[in-house]
Each structure stands twice: as C-alpha cells, then as structure tokens.
C-alpha cells in the first residue's frame, strides 16, 4: 500500500515537473560541449568526448581553418625532411565517424553567465561545458619594430601553414653568403626546443644550398631547452655557421626594422636577408575575451583542467598556466584526455580516474640525428607537477640517434591519428 502510494506521488511529481517546461527540456536533451580550437588540445578533446560518451554528449568543434597544419614537424618541412601536405590534416573523420559538429568559424565572444559562444558568422552556440584550446597569440610590442603587420617581411612561422611556406621560400631565395637572423622568444612560449630545432633545420638546408651563409640568433634567455645537445649538434654538423647570442651577450636587447631588413642587437645594427621574429607569447585572444586570464595565460586546476575562474570552462594546451608542463602538442593532447574524462564525469556521471600527464618532445638536429626530452606529471592542488623525466645524452652513438628520429616519425603518426581519428 505504502509502496504504491509512494510510487504514485513520484509519478505525480514527474508530471508536474515536466509541465514546467524549458529547464526540464534542457535536462533531458543531450548535454552540450563546445570546443573552441581544433588543434592538438581541442581536436583531441572533441574526439575523446564524442568517442567515449558514445553519442550521449553533443559535441561542437569551432575552428576557422579547414586544414590544420601541425606546428610539430613544420621545422622538418623547413629542413626539407617533410612536405607541407604531409603535415596537413582535415576534420572530415571527426565529423563523419565521431558525429562531431564541426563549425568552421571564429569564436568572437563568450557570455559566461548565459553559457553561450558567439561566432563571427553571427550564430550563437549554447554549452553546458566549454573547452578552450586556442593556442597562442603574440604580445604586442614584444620586439620593438615588429608587429603582426610585419609578418610578411619578417615571418614568425610559429603558427604553421602559409607562414612556414613563406619563411622557407625566403630562405631558399637568400643570396649566397647571406644572413639569416632569428629573434628567439622569452619564456614561457610554445615548444621550448622549437626555435633551436628550426635553427638546425635552416642550417641543414643552407649547408647544402648556401654553405657560406650565416645564422645569427638573438635570444633574450641565457640558456635554452636541450642546449648542450643542440650546441653539440651544431658543432658537429654546421661548424661555424650558427652564432647564438644569449642574454649574457646582449641577445635580449634587440629591435628590428622590417622595411630596411635590419636587426639591431645590443646597439649593433646588421643588415640581414631573412629575419624570423618569434615574439613573446600569450594565450589565444579568446581567453582574454572570456575574462579567464591572469597575466598572459589562463590559470587552470590540474585535476580537471578547469579554469580557476569558471568551472564550466576547461582550458587546454598552450593557452594555460598549469605548472610544470611545457607548452607542446604532446602536452595539449595529454591534457585533453584528462579534461575529456572530467567533462564526461561531470555531465554523465561516468567514472573519473586520477589525472596523469606526460610529454616527450623530439627534435631533429641533422639527418638521422634525433634527440628527445620528456617527463611525466601528476596533478596537485597547486599545479601540474613533474614526477620523473629524462633527456638524451650528449655523445650518443649514431644508431641511437637514428632510432630516436624514427620514433619521432612514429609519434607523429600516433598523435595525429589520436587527434583527427
């Protein structure tokens, strides 16, 4: 009797509730996740959420470009080890096999109270959880004389695609014995070994086509990632070609003149043929617009990758301030999986396991001369903290270096299929 009565009351409540419309419709509909940015972090997160929720979550991926060129291996393209097509990826499989709604547009505004994203094309998207993985933008005025309008005269090539093509073409057009200059960025920035792998690849190409050319690097840092390995490699492969000017020697005191094609390092002006300016970086601008940045980056909670300022937003990859992980594609991919699990846990109540992260960055110094550095990480309440790590040693034999390079090729296949399906 009692049981029946309870049952009846329960059913009655449900009826009443369903009459008080929209709130309940939202509850019954599939929860919505919007992902902004289809790069290493965003594509991975979208794919994992769609794959593991088996359709129970409605996933929309907002990305302006139809072809994503990976920054990783774009230096190898510069050195002639890869073609541009080989680092190009499209979103077709994410849409067709994973049911992700891929929207090619820019996100131009986020209303955190209404939980909506507005797009440049005029549409608005609702979300229950928002994932931001917009990568980096450059800090205005970081290199005196350079701004984004100078990116054709002095490319950054720190977002891959047409910028990479342009820089490569400029290097190929250098006169014999000409000068290539790089202005390296201050910490923290995307891909710590990136500029130095680039120097190696540029040297590789010049050694073949333009052996009397010179490379100058003006660096605002006193030392850099895998420095001993790179310097050993430069001495082995490109003796006398690379002049690295660290901050101890005035490398941080630099300005450029894109019209005159000059670089002034510590008061000394040099005319150059190609100048690759990699300015200081900050989180992709949409983070600032969402009001979730502190300084240049978006602080996150490492257990879930939630923004410290809004628990309905998860931030991934280069845009974050998370602790010890370097800004790399590997890191972004690793963080995306933790966020995907947390989002499914929050929206569907699925099991949530403790967050684990890892990173390995390979760099190519010359033909078959690969090196790597890597670490594992765990989330603490303060940050993502390093647990354990390793780095290639100087003086390793050629067979190991070749194996290491071959591994990086395997990794590229692995991570890109992990991102794009």
């Amino acid at each position, binding site marked *: 009797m009692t049981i029946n009565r309870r049952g009846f009351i329960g059913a009655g409540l449900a009826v009443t509730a369903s009459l008080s419309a929209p709130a309940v419709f939202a509850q019954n509909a599939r929860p919505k996740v919007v992902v902004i940015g289809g790069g290493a972090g965003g594509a991975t997160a979208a794919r994992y959420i769609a794959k593991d929720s088996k359709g129970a979550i409605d996933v929309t991926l907002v990305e302006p470009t139809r072809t994503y060129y990976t920054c990783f291996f774009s230096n190898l393209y510069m050195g002639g080890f890869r073609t541009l097509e080989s680092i190009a990826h499209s979103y077709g499989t994410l849409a067709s096999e994973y049911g992700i709604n891929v929207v090619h547009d820019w996100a131009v505004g986020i209303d955190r109270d209404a939980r909506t994203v507005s797009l440049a094309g005029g549409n608005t998207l609702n979300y229950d959880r928002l994932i931001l993985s917009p990568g980096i933008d450059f800090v205005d005025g970081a290199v005196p004389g350079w701004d984004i309008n100078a990116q054709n005269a002095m490319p950054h090539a720190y977002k891959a695609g047409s910028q990479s093509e342009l820089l490569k073409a400029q290097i190929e057009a250098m006169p014999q014995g000409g000068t290539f200059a790089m202005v390296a960025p201050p910490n923290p920035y995307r891909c710590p070994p990136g500029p130095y792998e680039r120097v190696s690849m540029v040297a590789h190409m010049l050694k073949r086509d333009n052996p009397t050319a010179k490379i100058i690097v003006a660096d605002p840092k006193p030392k850099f990632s895998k420095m001993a390995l790179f310097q050993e490699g430069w001495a082995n492969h490109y003796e006398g070609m690379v002049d690295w000017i660290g901050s101890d020697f005035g490398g941080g005191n630099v300005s450029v003149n894109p019209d005159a094609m000059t670089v002034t390092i510590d008061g000394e002006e040099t005319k150059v043929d190609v100048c690759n300016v990699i300015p200081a970086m900050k989180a992709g601008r949409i983070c600032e617009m969402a009001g979730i940045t502190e300084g240049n980056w978006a602080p996150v909670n490492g257990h879930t990758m939630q923004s410290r300022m809004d628990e309905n937003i998860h931030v991934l990859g280069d845009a974050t301030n998370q602790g010890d992980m370097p800004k790399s594609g590997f890191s972004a991919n690793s963080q995306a999986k933790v966020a995907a*699990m947390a989002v499914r846990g929050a929206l569907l109540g699925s099991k949530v396991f403790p967050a684990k992260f890892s990173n390995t960055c390979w760099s190519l110094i010359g033909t078959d001369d690969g090196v790597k550095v890597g670490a594992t990480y765990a989330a603490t309440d303060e940050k993502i903290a390093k647990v354990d790590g*390793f780095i290639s040693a100087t003086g390793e034999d050629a067979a190991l270096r070749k*194996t290491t390079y*071959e*591994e990086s*090729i395997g*990794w590229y296949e692995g991570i890109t299929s992990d991102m794009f399906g």
Partner: protein
Amino acid sequence: MTRFFALLVAAAILPWAAVAEETADAIGDPTRGTKIYSKCSGCHLVGPNATDRIGPHLNGIFGRAAGAHEGYRYSKSMTRAGNDGLVWDLETLDAYLENPRALVSGTRMSFRGLKQAQDRADVLAYLRTYSDNPANIPEAEPTARKHEVELTPEILAIVGDPEYGEYLSSECTTCHQSDGGDDGIPSIVYWPEEDFVVAMHAYKRKLRPHPVMQMMAGRLSDEEIAALAAYFGRLAN
C-alpha cells in the same frame, strides 16, 4: 628469481677488486652449464673458431651490446634494443634466457626460455668462460643495478580491468597507434596479455633500456599494467 637476487647480493658484498675479477665460478657452475648449453648449441656456437649459425656465436657476449655482432642479421626488435642501449650483462642475459620475449618482444630466437634460475646461472657461468675481458663486464658495478619489483606468479595472475585500461591507454596512444601501425614505434595491440605484462615489467625494472618506456612503465602499478594488457589485448577494430 629469488636465487638470482641472492647471487647479486653476494656479489655486492665482495670487495671491489674481487668483483671486477668476477669469475665464472661466482656466477654458477660452468661444468653443469656445459650440459645445459646443449639446449643452445643447435643454434649458437661458442669457443675457438665459432661461427654464426641460426643464432650469432656467443664468444665475448658479456659486455657486448645486444644485436651488435657484425655480419649477423638480427631481428628488427633486437637491433632496436641494442640501439636503445641494451647491453648483455649478468642481469640482462638472465632475463633474456628466462623469457626471451620479455626482454625483446620481437626476437627471432624461438626458444621457450630456461625457467630454472640455477640452469640460467650455470649456463651463464659457462658462457662467461668465453668472455675474456672482465673490465668490460657491466655487472662489475653492482651498485648500478636497480631491483624494484620481482615478477612473481601472483603479478602475472592479476586479472586486468579493461575499463581502467581504456582510460590508461589514452596515455599510450599518443605514440602507439591504436590501429596497430608500427613505423618507428612498435605496435602494442592484440598481444597475448602475459607477453605484454612481462614486457612492461621489464621496462619498469629497467631491464629493457628505453628511457621513455622506463618512465611510462615506472609509474604504473601491477594492476594498471594488467588493466592495460587486458585492454590492448582485446582492442578489436
């Protein structure tokens, strides 16, 4: 394993000079080892004028890098292990002879392994008499050895939870392709669970040399390794 461990402890308390001169007798019984070597001799020659047969000759094997004997065509897996820095010393030889695939998954040596620690010790004592440069023997530095976990039958018997394995696997698929592609990085799908478990423990115990995999395996518990083995073993496309 226990007996082998005791052996290492014994080596560790010997004075330095004696360790450096470690003789066959300190490893096991070379005379008994001669008999056990008959299990190897169909494939491996050893001694004066030994040449390569199905397997490479085993003169000077102590201190030699794996897959490094010139003129012999090793498997891809053995070559990779050597490139990664696998060197034959008492400990790595013991692990290889116990279960060749635990140390080198794709090895061409089709040999089931010597399950008795004493048999391995004795055959290695015998081989030691054909390795004449004690200075090159890495086991002369017992302190350099890591002994973390022993791989017991209980560990092998753990039944893995594939759901947990699926979550953990997302950390692996950044490098290992889930469709089994294997350029540059070996495939780890569809393996028999036990082979997977022993391989992971060989990294964890730092018997296998690769630094990335040592690091990845190093922080996995026995249950997590079993869960991964269950998940990847079953991954069907």
